[in-house]
């Protein structure tokens, strides 16, 4: 049992990682992230990249929906805008990551501002409908703005570059994705503790009260939209480099809903929840599929039946989690930590 947590300086009080055990485990985690691509095979590295991209995008949606309470069904559209921006810039002008990532985020954020504009007047399900419209319009744009998006056939994306470095393989791209994901997480964790972050939460909890306290409603909501879309745009750009091709089929409405599921399963309004949600929603179907494929040598035919079953089990797991812990995996994590912290003197 840990007792006492004294702070002697303001710096200590402001630290993001407050206690030695937390710092220790974060260091271990950091080392593990660095070592991972050297020891893991192609397939785990591929999955890690996928998780990383999901983390970045889910953080964006969590800032918008979890923290600020602005439900969005257009997250895939934001990702798509970012992906096309990066793909167009790098395939036409051969620009490197230093330009394409910020540009992808920026263009997506601008699109987010437009989509977020109705949020002053409408909220809840109505806002969901407005963002749904954005999704549909974006999908239409991806298909029909052929001069930019390459239409139905999309754009073949050259490998990501940064100066003399080329990130052509999943393993090389892993470095970029982890760095960006770490930066994104760090920024979100800090934002949460700052005045703009608290303004987000105030708007979510009671918008009228927030306004009376001097939180500019419209500005805050727009900021959340821009920020959420920026994250999504960056994630979309990484997706483009990762998939090496961008077509309109990559960003359907179902992806937007998938991201809502990610943050709900992970934990709305928590930073770590976005990470847990991304890991859970990406890896669990893979694990289930791996389990199903264990049956292959014994009953090859069974795979055909087991494969749809994995979706059912996955759906059941999500429902189960939500029933037993509506606050998501983040809350389960907190409870587990509390258990060990208080052990053996849990009252």
């Amino acid at each position, binding site marked *: 049992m840990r007792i006492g947590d004294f702070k002697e300086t303001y710096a200590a009080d402001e630290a993001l990682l407050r206690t030695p055990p937390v710092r220790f485990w974060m260091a271990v985690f950091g080392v593990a992230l660095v070592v991972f691509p050297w020891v893991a*095979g*192609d*397939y785990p590295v*591929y*999955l890690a990249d*996928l998780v990383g991209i999901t983390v970045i995008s889910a953080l964006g949606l969590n800032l918008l929906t979890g923290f600020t309470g602005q439900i969005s069904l257009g997250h895939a559209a934001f990702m798509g805008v970012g992906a096309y921006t990066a793909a167009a810039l790098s395939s036409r002008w051969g620009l490197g990551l230093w330009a394409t990532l910020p540009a992808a985020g920026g263009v997506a954020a601008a699109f987010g501002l437009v989509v977020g504009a109705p949020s002053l007047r409408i909220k809840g399900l109505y806002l969901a409908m407005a963002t749904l419209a954005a999704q549909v319009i974006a999908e239409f744009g991806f*298909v029909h703005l052929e001069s930019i998006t390459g*239409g*139905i*056939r*999309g754009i*073949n994306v050259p490998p990501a570059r940064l100066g003399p470095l080329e990130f*052509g*393989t*999943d393993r090389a791209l892993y470095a970029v994705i982890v760095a960006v994901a770490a930066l994104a997480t760090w920024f979100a964790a800090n934002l949460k503790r700052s005045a703009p972050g608290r303004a987000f939460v105030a708007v979510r909890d009671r918008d009228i009260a927030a306004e009376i306290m001097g939180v500019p409603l419209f500005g805050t909501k727009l900021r959340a939209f821009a920020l959420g879309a920026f994250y999504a745009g960056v994630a979309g750009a990484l997706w483009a480099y990762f*998939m*090496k*091709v961008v*077509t309109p*089929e*990559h960003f359907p409405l179902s992806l937007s809903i998938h991201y809502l599921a990610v943050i709900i399963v992970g934990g709305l309004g928590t930073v770590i929840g976005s990470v847990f949600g991304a890991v859970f929603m990406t890896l669990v*179907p*893979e694990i289930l*599929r791996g389990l*199903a*494929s264990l049956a*292959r*040598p*014994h009953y*090859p035919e069974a*795979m*055909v039946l087991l*494969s*749809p079953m*994995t*979706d059912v089990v996955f759906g059941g797991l999500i429902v189960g989690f939500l029933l037993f812990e509506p606050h998501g995996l983040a809350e389960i994590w907190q409870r587990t930590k509390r258990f060990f912290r208080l052990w053996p003197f849990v009252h």
Partner: protein
Amino acid sequence: MLRKGLAMAVGILMAVPAFGADTIKVGASQPLTGRFAFAGVQLNQGLADVFAWINENGGIKGRKIEYIFEDSGYQVDRAVAVFKKIMAEHKPPMFYGESTGQGKALAPEITKTYKILYGSTSFSSELANPEKYPYTFVSGPTYSDMFGVLLEYIAKNPKGGKPTVAFFYSDTEFGKDPIPYARKKAKELGVDVVAEIVTKVGAVDVTSEVLELVKKKPQYVIIHGFVLSPIPQVIRGSKDYGLDISFMGTFWSMSQMIIDKLGEDADGYMGINPYAYYYETDVPMIQKIRAFNQKAHPDVKHRPNSYLQGWFTGMVFAKCAEICLENGWEITGDNLVKALESIRDWDVGGLMPPVTFVNHKVPVGRVYRADAAKKRFVPVSDWIRLQ
């Protein structure tokens, strides 16, 4: 007791690897779930069955084929994940993919790193391009070729005066893929394209589309880019207006499903299929496939054309491996591609006419017409080979 159980478990585990080290592996990511599952399950079964059949008949020069597949749900990221997983675990020299999207996403890595022979469910014209996709092949005609075959048929069978046609396609990659080629080909053949109608997949209200047909009165309409809906609605709609139009479909809309759905209205519906149908019992290869199914799957009465695509693709994989073994080449992607390109007039027992790969595809097909009373498609042309 426990020890006995353990010993048994170990015994079972040891007995399982029936495949020796010298098997020839084929990997596959199959859309067993998701919106393409209706075909994916059959494609997968076709591949699994053809390999089982080849193995029963002595394998390829005595070597067995091992088929390793996993579900990929018709999602490009999952499909690529399955590809990487199977490549990491089994390193097969041949792989079967689930979609055009997967083929495009994997192409740079297949060309640079993996170097394996890659076939897929896709008939996309884009993928049949050995310069851009050196390891990819299309196991049949591309969608462009399908239009080519249908247009040649139309040019030879005008219904009075100059032949006219309308293209009716979906707003998707699948739908738009062959259109530029089709326009060019129609011009060459002297077929007038009187209308191009683009609509969404699964559209229910097609009144305006049908009115367009009423206005333009084409002799033929080629519908492409849909599996089912809105094909029945369009055909019924135009019948209500008393139009005498021959509707034609491409591969995915030429399965039994459409005859069942249309009922009596199916009469006269035409289209192209590059493979013989399961009920063409005079075709030697179909007889073999039926015999295999009777033994392995006694409950199965019918197999759709997607199953036969799987079967044929499996034959191609096996043939390429066989050519490598005959010539004493190691079974690698490069040699398999060389083998594929060397195939000339390969007799496949009538499943297709003698096969020669041109630009990694087989530009051949046959026009069939639905007979509603018999509930099946009957051929109305001979095999048409594009030049």
